[in-house]
């Protein structure tokens, strides 16, 4: 049985897999990292977005064996010492989540946007989210959260939400 070794959230990890095992199955079923979700089977919903070697990817559309030696970051790897990452904090502050299912993918995708575009416009955020579906929020507060999270990561204070 193939064996894959990689770094997940800064720590070494390894598991026996099948060649057909997807990265998301490795994360959820072998490594117990169930924060990464599966919401579709056509690579569209983005609930499974993680970072592989610094880029956001859909972990349902990459084989575990392709990630040999890779550096993977999941939603579980963002908060440190119980303190939320500024992007996570922005989602909380701006009610950017309801059922929470799409949320990990949204946050991971947002971080990749901010990496390339630290000060995105509302339009740019909406277009970036093409690969992330949410059925609860109507995206309004997700967009607001990402703009606030980006601002916080630039060192500007997060604006208050819904008062």
């Amino acid at each position, binding site marked *: 049985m*193939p064996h894959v070794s990689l770094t997940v959230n800064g720590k070494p990890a390894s598991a026996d897999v*099948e*060649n*057909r095992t*997807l990265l998301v199955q490795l994360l959820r079923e072998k490594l117990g990292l169930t924060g990464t979700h599966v919401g579709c*089977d*056509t*690579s*569209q919903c*983005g609930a499974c*977005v993680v970072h592989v070697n610094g*880029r*956001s*990817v*859909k972990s*349902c*559309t*990459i*084989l575990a*064996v*392709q990630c*040999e030696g890779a550096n993977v970051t999941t939603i579980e790897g963002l908060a440190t010492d119980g303190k939320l990452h500024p992007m996570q904090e922005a989602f909380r502050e701006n009610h950017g989540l309801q059922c929470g299912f799409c949320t990990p993918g949204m946050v991971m*995708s947002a971080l*990749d*946007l901010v990496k*390339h575009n630290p000060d995105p416009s509302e339009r740019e955020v909406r277009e*970036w989210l*093409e*690969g*992330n579906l949410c059925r609860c929020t109507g995206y309004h507060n997700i967009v607001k959260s990402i703009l606030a999270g980006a601002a916080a990561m630039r060192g500007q204070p997060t604006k208050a939400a819904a008062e």
Partner: protein
Amino acid sequence: MYDFAYHRPTNLADAARLAKEAEAKLMAGGMTLIPTLKQRLAKPSAVIDLGAISDLVGIRVEGGRLTIGALTTHADVARSAEVRRTIPGLADLANGIGDPQVRNRGTIGGSLANNDPAADYPAAVLGLGATIQTNERSIAADDYFKGLFETALKEGEIITAVHFPIPEKAAYAKFPNPASRYAIIGVFIAKGPQGVRVAVTGAGNGVFRVKAMEDALAKNWSADAINDITVPASECNSDIHASSEYRAHLIGVMAKRAIQAAG
């Protein structure tokens, strides 16, 4: 998905040798292959992952042409200063493929080898009159696309790069499928060393050129020049999102928008 053998060669020769095995499938970014496997629509004996062949990645401008390595991702093309400087319409096209995560993995070589009738890159390659470089030969764009998911590639032949002549003007206008965001119609128009070329994706069984538009634009480079030129609806596909009449109409609209965008 069905299980398969997995190979990750580090050089082209090994990849080519492995690819000759019956029922083996080459994988570049995997953005089409993996979803296909997940739906059990293909049952390859082996998947040959080209991802470790680093020679196949890169963008360079030399000899008056832009060369993009086959394994260069859409995101890298979209963000490339060289592409932006030489063929901004190509960078824009790359930036509109799929979604950011698809662009982070999907590659130009994979897209061209697959030749989905609604994919974007075939329009650029045909519209710009590019040359497809394989491990065995060079293939002109006009000879490469052979219809629905069919190309001139032989068994085991691997795309290594695409050479784009640098045009004077070029742009792509796409009308996406509202659900899948693939092209319902995409029109790439270029004016360059090979004259004016108009390539349409999404309409039929594969990308094609519209000669009448090319001739009209060669005489008069303006959106008005193609006002009266239509592609017959009978040559266009029909589905729940777009009838053949609507597709035929959109070819005209998108062509004009491409001309306007090209300036």
